[in-house]
């Protein structure tokens, strides 16, 4: 039972760490104004995307 508990604990910790890390990255990225940089690209026709180059 100890072994099972330990493995389960690892899985849960990895899930929580991943969730927290994701939230931290969102906060930093938003603080850096990253959304504004790709917004400028997204509101213009992307010539690369459509095959103009």
């Amino acid at each position, binding site marked *: 039972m100890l072994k*099972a508990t330990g493995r389960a604990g690892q*899985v849960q910790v990895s899930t929580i760490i991943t969730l927290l890390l994701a939230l*931290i990255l969102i906060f930093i990225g938003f603080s850096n104004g990253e959304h*504004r*940089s790709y*917004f400028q690209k997204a509101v213009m026709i992307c010539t690369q995307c459509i095959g103009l180059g």
Partner: protein
Amino acid sequence: MHSMHRPGLKIRFWSQIAATISSNAYLIGFKTGNIYTGVLKHGCVPTLNCYSCPAALFACPIGAMQVTVAGAGGLDLTALPTIGARLTAISTSLPLLVIGFLALIGSIVGRAACGWACPFGWFQELLNRIPTPKFNGPKVFKYLKYVILIVFVFLLPAFWLDEYDGGEPSFCKYICPAGTLEGGVPLAILQPSLRSQLGWLFTWKATLLGIILLAAVFIRRPFCRWVCPLGAFYGPFNRVSLFKIEFNKAGCIECGACSRACPVSLDVPREVDSAECLRCLECRDVCPKSLLKISTRASSACPELKQQ
């Protein structure tokens, strides 16, 4: 034998339609030939959806990643005097917001966005319904999408610079068939001025799109399994995500119904919930023994403790 199909199958179909329409609800763009330029494009959808589609309301996460990385072209860390300045420069050069957003989705539901919300994945599934002989293709191809994620989404936009030290979105430019289908083809039809400028690159991308769509008739979701960098990003999260699929192997009668239903041709008893699994739940819905179920890491973590 009673019908093995449960409502889940239809729910997923309608979820795919709803996601496709809600991501591309600016329908007037198909009339005017112009793309949406409103505030919603500050946000990304969790799936591959070209922001140059005339109807797209949101940004594409893979496009946004490349734009951020490419915008940092020519970054010279040695020119920065302090460690703090260097760390700040690095953090503003990486697509942390998009990575965090995708990681949040992945941490909760793994690769489910691919199975439930991706317009291009759904289109491939529709093509695969055309009655023809079906094939699996070599399993080793699944590693290609990880190479594409690293090389075309990160390395080339960061290091393949033009004379002005600017990078470009290499995946969008050379590969993305969703961009060609949703952006390139409609805009080429709607804007004669653009159509007149199309050259070898459009020919290459249209050919690639044609190959992938033709392959999708015979092979289940070939782009998702072998090429999609977003699938490569989400895949590993299946190992740690809050929600997962549990399979009771002990009760399996090896009927093969689950593997036949899998939209990415997995050997379900051995590969369910692997990095290739789209979490679509088709397998759960057809299993005659109801051996597959959704659970959380927490609920299934300590069965022995639960029994006490």
